[in-house]
């Protein structure tokens, strides 16, 4: 019984830890916009967590600059299982306009498994919410597989 409750709770209270890896702040603003009264992701139990230890979903924005790569990977390791990695915007997926720069390491897939990639430059809040919602469903699956 508890197993089921826990699995269901996984979808209902995903806490987000946001890592900016050299983003232009556009995606960050849109993520924050999701928390505002207009979109209010807290309806679904989403909450911003202060430390990776509390996080379920790590949201990565920005093109993974060389400086931030190690720190990002270290942070990802510190997140307890089950967890999801969600990328916002085109930068972490492809490098976007920064592609080919000597200091950019995108895409993120090279270094870790990405569960949900939200495309756009920047994605609309609605898209972000949908992406996060999908990530929450993946969390449940990961928990059930544990």
């Amino acid at each position, binding site marked *: 019984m508890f197993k089921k409750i*826990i699995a269901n*709770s996984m979808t*209902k209270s995903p806490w987000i830890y946001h890592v900016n890896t050299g983003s232009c702040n556009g995606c960050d603003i849109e993520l924050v916009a999701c928390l505002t*009264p207009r979109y209010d992701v807290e*309806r679904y139990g989403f909450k911003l967590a*202060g430390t990776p230890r*509390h996080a379920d979903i790590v949201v990565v924005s920005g093109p993974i600059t060389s400086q931030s790569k190690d720190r990002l990977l270290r942070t990802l390791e510190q997140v*307890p299982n089950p967890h999801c990695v969600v990328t916002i915007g085109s930068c972490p997926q492809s490098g976007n306009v920064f592609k080919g720069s000597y200091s950019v390491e995108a895409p993120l897939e090279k270094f870790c498994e990405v569960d949900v990639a939200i495309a756009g430059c920047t994605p609309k809040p609605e898209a972000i919410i949908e992406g996060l919602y999908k990530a929450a469903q993946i969390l449940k699956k990961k928990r059930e597989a544990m």
Partner: protein
Amino acid sequence: MPDILARLLDVLVVALHVLIFPGLLFAAVGGLLLAGIDRKVLAHMQRRIGPPIVQPFYDFFKLMGKETIIPAAARPGIYKAAPIIGLVSLSLMMLFFPIFGHSAAFGGTADLIVILYLLTIPAVALIIGGSASGSPFAGVGISREMVVMLGYELPLVMVLLAVAKKVGGSALVFSLQGISDWQLTNGCLLFQWSMIPAALAFLLIIPAEVGTQPFDVAEAETEICEGPLIEYSGAPLAIFKLNTAIKMFVMTALFSVLFLGDINLGQYWLLGGLVLFVISAVLTILCMTFIHAFTARLKIEHLFKFYWTVVAGLALVSLVLVWFGL
């Protein structure tokens, strides 16, 4: 034979009290619901829809299902025991409140001064657990937690002494049972005008004790990454979150015992529990959600000054008034 049976039944009843009704389970469920109500009402005040009222339950169970990472710098024993010690001492506190007629038997084991000190155990558990995790953010967090405690302890002490004097008159009454008995005959302490500043002071102490905004300096997640909780994950974190929720319930219930009196509905004890819960919910909204909705986090030195001047001043007014027989 029936003697032993009766004794066994007694033990069973005590165990049920401790574990289920006014004890652990009731405190946990009530506390989590209060936390949910707090979040919901806050959302509505900000014109949001907000999470469902049972959201803290989801959070709790989710955290239970997560992996528990014990940091290398921590001592596993203390790291895991700290939240449980806090949880147990908090849920035991519910037993000492003379609210549910028949559980008054436990009321004879502790009183005001003891409650005052038992209330420090959860905070100490948080501090010890936090410092056991070895993070510098936790170091800052525990120091702030301690300063907050120093801040609210002075007014809290004065409020409790004022209550003891007011109720006792010539002979001091520290026992919670005595305080609620006095209110049965003389009416609520809240309606004694000399006690109103003390009640206000207590209402202002509750958010600091629980650690809600604007007094959440110790766990400020946006500046020091949740302070003492920074390295906690999984089940121990779930229990710490539960502790915060139970603290809301315990503190509001303490207010209702001190200033509103007994809710003894005899055999309808379940109804009594419900009434207590409703009062607690109202108090939660009044002194935590409202203040949360329209304030930003204080700086630690401002918080300390606020408690040692404004709140302690209110409490002192009551103490002096009571002392001169008003």
